Every structure is written in C-alpha cells, then in structure tokens.
C-alpha cells in the first residue's frame, strides 16, 4: 500500500471505474491456460464438491461429487481431475530445448512451454494445496489402492501451490490478486477478494458503473461466490435437498444430474467471469521482464517433470535444509520481482520515486567525456545534472542505475534542492569515450533508481545428507507408510 495506490483508489471512487496501477502486464499468460474453479463442501477441510475446468472457454468440463461424504465418489473425482491435469501437463510441455551445459558439465534442458493453471482467488490455491496434501501419499497397491493418477495429481497440485508462493511465478495464477496488481478499485481489499465485485469495478456491464456492478456481484443469487466456499443459502435450499435425493435414490443418474445442474448453476457465472478477466489481462502489453521470469517457471517445471518418476512425494513438512533454501529463494524472488516490475513499468517506478528511492527529471547539462584522472589510469566518469521535482531521499555517494537501461550506473555526487549531480560509473562501453547514445543528452527525461534487481547472490546450503546436528542432522528417508495410504479423508 502506498499513497499512489490510495490515490488511484480515490480516483476510482470519483470516476466510478477502476483505475490502472500498472501500464504493462506483470505476469505471463499462456495461450491455453487451464482454468479451474473448485468448490468444496462447507465445513470440511478439503472435501471436493465440484470443479469446472478446461482450456476452452466454450467447452468447460464439470466434475462433481454427488455425495461429497462418500469416500469412493471422492476418489473417483480425484482420478478424473488427475486425468485432466496430467493431460494439461503433457499437452503444454512443448519441445525440449537443450541449453548450454552447466559449469560442472551437466546437461541442461528446458521445455519450450509450461502448463499454466488459473484459479479465481486465493481460496482456490488453498483448496488445491490441501487436495494435493490429501492425495499425494495414497498407495496405488494393496488393500487401499487408488487410481495411479491420484497420487500423481497430489504431487502436481502440491508443486503448483508451492510455485504460487513464489513472487513473480505465473504457473498458478489467482485472478483476484493478478487483477489487483493492475487495477485499483473504489472498494477495500476485502471486497476486492470477490472476483465478481472486482470485475464489476474494472469492466462493468453496459449501463452500469463500478459501484452498481459491484453491489450486484455481492448478491449471491445474481452472482454466486467464486468458491471454493459455496453460498450458505444455496447449500441449504438447493444443494442439500439435491444431495439428499441422490442418497435416497441410491445413486440414480437422474438424481446425480440434479446435483450436477445445481453446482453448474453456481460455477458457470464464475467460469465466464474468469475468461473475461483473462481477456482484460491479455489486452495489456507484456512487461519486458515477464519472459525472463517465465523462463524460471519453465526451469522449475522442466526439473519437476523430468525428476517426477524418481522422486518421492513432497514431505509433509520441509526438512531444515529445504526450509532454509526455500525461505532464501522466496526472499530473493520477492526482491528481484519488485525491482523488475519497477524497471518494466513507470507506474510502479513511481512508487520508488514517491518514496525517495528513485528520482526522475530532465537532464539540464551533461559532460559525457569527463575523465577521472586521479588514479594511475584515467577512467571515464561523465557528469550529469538532473533537475527533479521528486522528493529525493538518497545520500550523496549512493549508487543508482538508469531505469530505462539498468546497465548504466552512477553515483550521486551532490544534491542541491531539486538539482542532482550524478557521476556515471559504468555501462558506457570499454573505451574512454562513451558509446553513442548511452549518456543521456540535455533535455531528455531520465529516471534513476537506487534499487537494483540482483543485489544479493544465491547462498550456499549444505546437502540434505550433511544437515548439521544443530538442525537435527540428516532427515530420515521417505518411506511410504500404511498410515498415509489409509488416512481418513472424510
């Protein structure tokens, strides 16, 4: 939250329409994302009720558990869902690129594409994570055997939920959060959590403005909730009688059809909304560093896919080394994601300027061929005078980089009111005269920021087998346990 976003929200209120807080799209969008809208049974941790899913907006697939408390029906649903997700994974892999071998000579590959999943909101991610947890340890043989696809689904869903935790990853997108990254509405973040209300502000139907569209979306009859929790009134008045009838009929197809029709009526509006949200996002130009972040996603996918057969299911809790590495990765991704977004988008960079960590203005004078001859060898150190209206909160001597070409580096020599004197220190070529067009000329608008994307490198962590005794020593190997296979899923 910054004053900029707050102001955008005020403008949204004043105009009755959502206002942009980004000028480019900061996430990757695949040509064929798998849209999934899961519903669960109220009051249960992860009892699936239904999921509408598919890659074709005109042909959604509907998976339903007509009696959500029935274990067999639940596993049948999990097997169906598994087939759909695994088919998506295989279809969206693309060809294998061979990359330059790593430093220690290991072969490296990367799939050309990666399977993207889109869910409406954070609750959807939470549900998929729990569904992953409740299915990945299931045994495919013995007395409690389940369809072999079920534990595979569990492992994929766990991986997706984990990728969603990583700042900048686009493998599992939540629509409410992604939309909020690009638009500010005239309502609070609580109300923005309702996909219908959020979309109402961004793209109200004809003849409506943001507030009226959002108000309509808060009526669960006009606009059923986007899940995974269902509307309590729907539960009590429609779903419960339909499920009871299904039980009474002994599972008759007509009774099952009634349950399916009931949940379809709750899912279809969100399904259409989800695709409209994707249209809006797709219409934005892609941010310049999005492909680079998607490359990291593809790397992660490639690795997970290629090692899938050899690896056991993900642990219930991370061991010490894994947890430390994960935390380190999350922090680094967060930092570079924030920096990259600012470089990609002047509206995000404006946040840094408002905070005084960056400044922008017009070059008033330049000495592009200035040499520093105080050392043994002369060094190219051009001077640049910039007039800014920004509230610069940087010290003299601070290192900054150019927002339009992050390679161009400089050091603040002096700040005198709105005039900043900058000494450029790098990014101008190897000679004693700068490469053409690199040093900004007087009259040009420039932005320099003190925040760079890769300010700290990757840390080294011990191998799993070398976990120090302070952290409990090497963790035990995974052994499939009966307890896991038989775990109640009620």
């Amino acid at each position, binding site marked *: 939250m910054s004053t900029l976003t707050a102001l955008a929200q005020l403008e949204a209120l004043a105009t009755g329409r959502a206002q942009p807080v980004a000028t480019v799209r900061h996430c990757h969008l695949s040509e064929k994302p798998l849209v999934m809208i899961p519903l669960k049974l109220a*009051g249960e*941790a992860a009892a699936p009720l239904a999921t509408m899913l598919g890659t074709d907006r005109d042909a959604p697939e509907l998976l339903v558990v007509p009696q959500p408390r029935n274990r067999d029906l639940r596993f049948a649903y999990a097997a169906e869902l598994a087939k759909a997700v695994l088919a998506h994974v295989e279809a969206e892999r693309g060809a294998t690129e061979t990359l330059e071998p790593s430093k220690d000579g290991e072969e490296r590959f990367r799939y050309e594409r990666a399977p993207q999943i889109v869910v409406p909101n954070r609750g959807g991610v939470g549900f998929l994570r729990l569904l992953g947890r409740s299915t990945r340890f299931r045994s495919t043989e013995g007395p409690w055997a389940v369809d072999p696809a079920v534990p595979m689904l569990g492992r994929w869903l766990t991986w997706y939920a984990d990728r969603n935790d990583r700042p900048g990853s686009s493998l599992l997108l939540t629509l409410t959060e992604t939309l909020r990254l690009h638009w500010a509405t005239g309502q609070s973040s*609580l109300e923005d959590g309702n996909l219908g209300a959020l979309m109402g502000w961004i793209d109200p139907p004809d003849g409506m403005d943001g507030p009226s569209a959002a108000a309509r979306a808060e009526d669960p009859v006009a606009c059923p909730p986007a899940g995974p929790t269902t509307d*309590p009134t729907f539960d*009590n008045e429609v779903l419960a009688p339909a499920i009871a009838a299904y039980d009474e009929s002994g599972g008759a197809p007509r009774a099952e059809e009634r349950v399916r029709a009931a949940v379809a009526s709750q899912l279809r509006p969100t399904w259409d909304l989800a695709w409209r949200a994707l249209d809006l996002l797709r219409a934005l130009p892609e941010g310049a560093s999005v492909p680079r972040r998607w490359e990291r996603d593809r790397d992660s996918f490639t690795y997970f896919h290629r090692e899938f057969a050899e690896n056991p299911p993900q642990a219930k809790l991370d061991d010490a080394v894994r947890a430390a590495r994960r935390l380190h990765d999350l922090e680094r991704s967060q930092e570079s994601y924030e920096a990259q977004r600012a470089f990609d988008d002047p509206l995000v*960079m404006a946040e840094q*300027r408002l905070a005084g960590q960056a400044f922008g203005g017009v070059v008033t004078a330049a000495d592009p061929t200035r040499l520093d001859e105080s050392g043994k060898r002369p060094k190219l150190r051009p001077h640049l005078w910039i007039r800014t*209206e920004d509230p610069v909160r940087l010290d003299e001597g601070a290192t900054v980089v150019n927002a339009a070409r992050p390679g161009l580096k400089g050091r603040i020599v002096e700040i005198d009111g709105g005039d900043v004197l900058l000494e450029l220190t790098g990014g101008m070529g190897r000679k004693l005269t700068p490469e053409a067009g690199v040093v900004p000329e007087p009259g040009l608008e420039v932005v320099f920021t003190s925040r760079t994307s890769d300010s700290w490198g990757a840390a080294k962590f011990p191998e799993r087998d070398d976990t120090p005794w302070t952290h409990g020593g090497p963790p035990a190997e995974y052994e499939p346990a009966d307890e896991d296979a038989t775990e109640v899923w009620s």
Partner: protein
Amino acid sequence: MSRDDEHTATDLSHLRGGEAPRNHDARTIAALTANPGCARRGVMDAAAVDKDAVARHLGFGAPFGQSQFAITRGNAFEAQVKADGCAELLALLRDRLGLDVPEVAYDDLESVGTESREVRHARTRHLMARALETGAGTLFDHPLLRLDIAGQRAYLEPDVIAFQLGGRFHVVEVKSFAVVDGQAEPEQVAAAARQSAVYVLALRELVEGLGHDPERVSHEVFLVCPENFSNRPTATPLDVRPQLAVVKRQLARLTRAEDIARRLPEGLTFALDEGLPEAVRAVEARYAPECMASCEMALFCRDEARACGATGTLGRNVRDELGGVDSVVTALELARGVREPSEDMAETAEQLRIAARLRREALGSGGERSAEQPLVGAQAPRGATDVLERTA
C-alpha cells in the same frame, strides 16, 4: 428472558424498546475489541440490542448465514469429543499432551428450560467455588460467565469447557476447522485465541470474585480440532497471553457506553419501528472493512460511510496512507492542489500532490513510451544489454 442484572450502574435496557436482549458470546466480545472506537456498536452491545434484527429491519441483513453442512459437521464433531463425559477429550489430554489427568467429574451447565441468566450464573459460581476449594479434577461445560464491558455487565454463553487440573483451570475450546500436519488457517487460530482470551478473562474475574487468586485460571488454553482430513480430534496447547493483553487493554479503552447513552436524544430506542433508521443514525459509527467479519450492522454502516464519502471504506491502510484525511473529496482536492491544506494535513497534501503528478506522468507517457522506446534494455537487442552489463 429476564431483565438485566440489578447491579448494573446505568440500565440501558430501555434502549431496546421492549425487544428481547441478546446475550454476548465470544464472537461478539472478541469483535468488540476489533473496533473499540465505534459508539454505535458500543451502545447497542451494552444494551444487548439484537443487532441482527435491527440490520434486517433496516434492509441490510448481515450475510452471516451458515451452511447446514458446516453446522452438521461442527455439531457432530463437538458431540463426538464430548460424548460419554468427554471421554475422548480426556484421552486426548492424557495421551497427546501427556497430562496426568485423574478421574474427573463432568457437569454440563447448559440452560435447562427457562432459567434466567442470573440463576445460571449463580450455579456456575457455586460449582466453581466448590471446585476451587477442593481442587478436584473437573470439567464444566457451557459455564455462564459475566464480564464488564464498557461499564455494562454482559453475560457470556461460551461454547467452551472449563477444565481444572492440579488446582488450575484451563479453557478448552472445541473448533471444527482442521489442523493439517500441525498447521491450521492462521485467521481461524487467531480468532479462536482471541475468543479464548475473553473466556480466560471472564473466568479470572469470577475466580477473583470468589476470593481466590485469579492466576488459578491458566493463560494456556487447549484448542481441540479435527486432525488432518479426519474426524479424529487433536489438542493443541495455546498460550493466549498476547491476546489477553490486547483484550484487557481494548476493554479498558472502550468508549463508555453510558457516557454515550447520556448524550443520546431523550426517548431514543432501537425498537423495530419506523423510527429505527433515525435512531441508529443518531449514534455515530466508525466503519472499517473489518466490521464485515464481525458486526451484524456492517452493511448498513458501510452504506452510510460510502454515502458520505469516507476514506475509511477503502480500508484502514488506505486511511493511514492518507494521513487521517477522512473525506474522499478532501483528499482528491488536496491531490489536485485546489484546496489549501490545514497545517496538520500539509505533509499528506504534499505526498498526494507528488503522487498525482507521478501518476499523470506515468499514465500520460506510458503508451507513447512503450511504442517508441522500450522501457527496459530487455526489449532492445540482447547484445546491447550485455555490453552495458559487462562494463558495469
């Protein structure tokens, strides 16, 4: 239902206008501490007004409906834990937490028939007094507790068990949200901890009133939840000292309901008649989006706050960011520089003006820039960027 306690300093029951009083429960008290500055809520709660009925009458019924699936599941789980004199609960405390629990008596203090709250509370006091003297192992289910809230005595009907072990009472709270691999939804755990803290506080007051050390009520409560995806219960000890401190502080700071009530127009009541909207508006509210999770009046107050263009409807963080500027129009005028800021708003006004300029610049030039000149080197040929990075 009978009248409020006769010892109440100022009786606010007339504000109900003849409607039946609503008892407090953990949710309403924990929620009270979430928005202590709200006079409307303070008065209505102190007078035990049925806010749900009021909101409904105003046409802003609260969306607090519960799915019958959730209710069934919750009840079934609670019944299972408490069956046979809480056999399963005791086994859990012994085996899972390794407590040395001796034979325990189980008393359900749930209301029988039309007993008044005073009678029920007296029974709770009586049984507690006996248990405190003997120190014997005891489980009290549904004790009726009392707590002073904003100068008013409120009754608490907790769905909770007071459990005495080794001369100390512990609060046991049964919740039906799942604990998966030792982790549960943080918001739900936080809410449970806040509620338990209220119970600990009320129990402590009761114990102190009986002439015992209030510390005989432990700050360690036991949360009983279904484990993983099953119906099997698991118990987790929870230290609620931080929540206790918050609840105590907030209760002490609560705008005193009687002070507010004194300033209300003569003869004002919240009776469900045509005068209701005016009566409700006569008491000032302080709406924040958090109210939606805890107060039946939230939709009405939100509508009211939106109609008068309050920045608070956008959330506390937005309001804070605006340095306490309450009005949307004022904030926008400050941003556009068409309103002279007062001294205390000068800093916020400056921030807003810069923010407005930066937004204008970024949005005005955004389109052109992406067309003509890439914002970042990455769109330029790869080699060019590399030169820049190599020589850096």
